[in-house]
């Protein structure tokens, strides 16, 4: 029972990380119509900038600010320098360009930081664990990650539903031409959204840096799962990204935690283990395939 609860928390924490990445990606996707394979690079930039500054200054919070700033700036530069020229182009050209960006970002990171993974420690306040229910000590930092993720979700909800910019974002996600017709400064809006998306990805990167290994290519591994979240949630829908992120995070964690054990009861030995892990690795893709077969445009498709 305690194990189940703990795994649910783990799933929630993975889910909000996916949400942070997917929120920006789904907006960029839905509003600008751009397939940005390089979104994971912002995650990596956030993690590296955050880790490096926190090593230099000894402060996690300094690193957090640096990570956010670096990823947002890199995002804006990419938008101004590259993406802006590709909005009118075919999806496939965007795929090629953002693939090239991945290569450039990865190798530049090697040149700047070298090949050794960076060390980051937990902020002092969050270095321990809290006994949430008796018998279950849970790392405080992970609770903090969950809290930040949920706070961002609330913030984005308010931004999108209560502000003029949010109105434009919603309009843009459901009908791209309409926003153009409204006579707003589209270019500025696009740059801002791209920067915001990069910033959220950078936030995810900084939050992940004390937990996982800060290394080159770390963004490439998580970007696939992020795309899965975006597509299941429905392209352009932040709400969809939230729901899909949490559900996917939960399912992935639950499958990995319990499927091998369950299989072992049904069939003998290590083969069950291996099979269980194999199936749970496929889990999110299986889910996506199933969701798309039932709802071809995802759960909360913004575009009609």
């Amino acid at each position: 029972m305690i194990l189940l609860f703990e795994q649910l928390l783990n799933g929630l924490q993975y889910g909000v990380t996916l949400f942070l990445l997917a929120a920006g990606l789904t907006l960029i996707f839905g509003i600008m119509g751009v397939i940005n394979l390089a979104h994971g690079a912002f995650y990596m930039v956030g993690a590296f900038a955050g880790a490096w500054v926190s090593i230099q200054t000894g402060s996690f919070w300094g690193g957090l600010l640096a990570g956010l700033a670096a990823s947002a700036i890199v995002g804006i530069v990419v938008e101004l320098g590259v993406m802006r020229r590709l909005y009118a182009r075919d999806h496939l050209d965007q795929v090629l360009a953002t693939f090239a960006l991945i290569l450039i970002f990865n190798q530049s990171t090697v040149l700047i930081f070298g090949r050794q993974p960076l060390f980051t420690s937990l902020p002092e306040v969050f270095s321990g664990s809290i006994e949430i229910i008796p018998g279950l000590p849970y790392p405080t930092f992970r609770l903090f990650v969950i809290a930040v993720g949920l706070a961002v979700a609330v913030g984005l909800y308010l931004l999108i539903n209560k502000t003029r910019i949010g109105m434009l974002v919603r309009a843009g996600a459901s009908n791209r031409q309409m926003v153009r017709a409204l006579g707003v400064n589209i270019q500025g809006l696009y740059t801002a959204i791209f920067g915001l998306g990069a910033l959220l990805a950078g936030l995810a990167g900084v939050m992940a840096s004390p937990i996982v290994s800060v290394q080159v290519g770390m963004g490439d591994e998580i970007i696939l799962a992020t795309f899965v979240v975006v597509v299941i949630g429905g392209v352009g829908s932040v709400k969809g990204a939230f729901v899909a992120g949490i559900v996917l995070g939960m399912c992935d964690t639950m499958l990995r935690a319990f499927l091998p054990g369950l299989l072992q009861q049904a069939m003998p030995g290590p083969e069950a283990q291996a099979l269980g892990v194999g199936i749970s690795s496929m889990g999110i893709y299986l889910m996506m395939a199933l969701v798309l077969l039932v709802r071809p445009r995802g759960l909360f498709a913004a575009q009609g």
Partner: protein
Amino acid sequence: MKRLLTSASVLVALAVPSFAEGTKIGVITTLSGPAGYLGEQIRNGLKLGLDATGAAYELVVEDDGRDPNTGVQIADRMLNEEGITLLTGIVFSNVSGAVVPEVTDAGAIYVSPNAAPSGLAGAKCHPNYFVVSWQNDSLHEASGAAAKKLGYTTAVALAPNYQAGKDAIAGFTREFGGEVTEIYTGVEQSDFASEMAQIRDKAAQVVFQFHPGGQGIAFLKQYQQAGLLGSIPMVLSEPSYDSVILKAVGPAAVGLTGTTHWNADFDNAASKAMVAAWAAAFPETPLTTYAQQAYDTGLLIGGALNTAGGEDVAALQAAMKAADFASTRGNFAFGANQHPVQDWYLTAIEADSAGNPVIVTKEKIIEAAGDVYAADCKM
């Protein structure tokens, strides 16, 4: 017969003066991606080792990107175009599985500084294929033996769900003999929270885990964050706690137990020379076992080049087979399959004065061990 061949080739080698610019050595290794630091360690260690022998050489280094396709492509060019007959450097088993047959079929020599998959250690062994590091299974058999020696009887063993991971758990289990709960992790997984919960739930006496590189860093950090570090001991094979991993993990590694075939505190001249040379050349970068293996590889190759006096393959092969070099690990010999016969040690990860983790050698747990596949090798 073999002796006759050897002396004949020595004669030939003596008759033909070696080229002044040195023998070309092909280094195929992984320099890009998350595992790029492993290739860097190997390249740098190899260079220092060769320098220590004073042999005339020239390194031709190329990145395989951990992709067997690329590895074979590079090997082909080195062998057939640049006329290189001596290759080394591969980090990963899947790359060496593809490249080594290519090299030996072409009549050239391959010396492994790291990966040594079982497929090439038994019936498919080859006179031109040498392994300086260890046979893959040996690493984890040592950890199994260590856990047994420390008196544990139940263990949780974790490894990624690929062949090397399965081999790791199998190797550990073989020597451990106790009750083992196996948990396989995802191949590209970086968050192990779910596994931490399971480890706590199983409440075994000891944890064994095999996660090289970035995965290992993430695993150790999270092990501490989950509050498991103080409560359940962990035994590690050397790829899971190399010095680069420890540097990135920081204090979270203090208190773990490891096994290794070499450690920086070894008290022999060759090892001390290497540690000093490394500190002079790469003061910023920790020295890992990867670099040490490559350094030994450099000693072996350089020594053989000096003995054979050039790049005649038969002469080089014979010189290497003799394994006449002072290994940084102390005792070293080749088994029937030209894989090492060596000692294994128990280590502890302790805190230095600054609180950073440092590996301290405790005791020898296995003496002069070869591998189980040597018996199948008929050379």
